[in-house]
């Protein structure tokens, strides 16, 4: 009886176990993009920057500056260049320094255009 009760309680709990272990729903969350530097050049980067509605992406020479704090995970960059952008799967992005959210993505692909 006590065992049954304990098991029932255990299985009856619907509460997420986060942060002890990942929640099932976390896999289906919209997440900021991750980039493939090998597929990125200035042309693709220009397309990504133009597709971003929030200015979260901008290019400085051969570096793509990605402001994760401005990203809304809308997925328009992934639509604009599916070969270069995939969902990152990262949702635990809270930080004590705003500057930690600004990422530099090198453009390592073959030069095209320009």
């Amino acid at each position, binding site marked *: 009886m006590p065992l049954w009760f304990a098991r029932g309680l255990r299985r009856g709990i619907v509460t997420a176990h986060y*942060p002890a272990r990942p929640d099932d729903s976390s896999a289906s969350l919209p997440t*900021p993009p991750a980039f493939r530097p090998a597929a990125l050049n200035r042309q693709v980067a220009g397309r990504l920057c133009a597709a971003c509605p929030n*200015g979260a992406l901008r290019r400085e020479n051969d570096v793509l500056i990605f*402001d994760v704090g401005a990203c809304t*995970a809308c997925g328009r960059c992934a639509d604009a260049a599916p070969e270069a952008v995939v969902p990152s799967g990262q949702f635990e992005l809270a930080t004590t320094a*705003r*500057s930690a959210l600004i990422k530099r993505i090198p453009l390592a692909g073959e030069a095209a255009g320009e």
Partner: protein
Amino acid sequence: MTLNGKEVPADGPGPASSAEDGLTPASGTGEVARELRQRIAGQFGRSLHIRTLDTGSCAVCEQEIRLLAAPHYDLHRLGFFFTPAPRHADLLLVTGPMIRAMDVAVHKTYQAMPGPKVVVATGACALGGIYPQDPFVHGDAGKVLPVDVWIPGCPPSPLALLHGLLVAVGRLAEKTPGLTFLADGEAR
């Protein structure tokens, strides 16, 4: 006046950083953050009261925050509670782009909270992502309040909010500085 180990002007909340753009933290932030975490862990233990402050958000952040109290996420199991009064609150959860019409309310709310207090900017609006140039808003919570923790997302999911709250009280480590957002070399 010093709050949370930071210098704050005596007449009201000041910007968190000395930088003009509000994106670059003042020097020594890492040390301040560590000290803050230790102080909060010592003083708040496992009970922390949250006041939410909507400064012109579209209310989707509020929907996600409200979900935190639902049985599935149940933030009470982690010792967090929502309070209706800023005078009872330890943590200010700010959403929205800091619309200028809320200046007085933001000021009064921050002043009413007893110290030590933590300010958490929630969502892309409060992080300066959506309205960086709009004349009706400050566009960035860091320009008005001394923000301690930034939670990105539009909206941040309840799990992301839980992570942010646990980072704010020093019970989880932040992962962001180690993330590169490069896809190569990862199995997908």
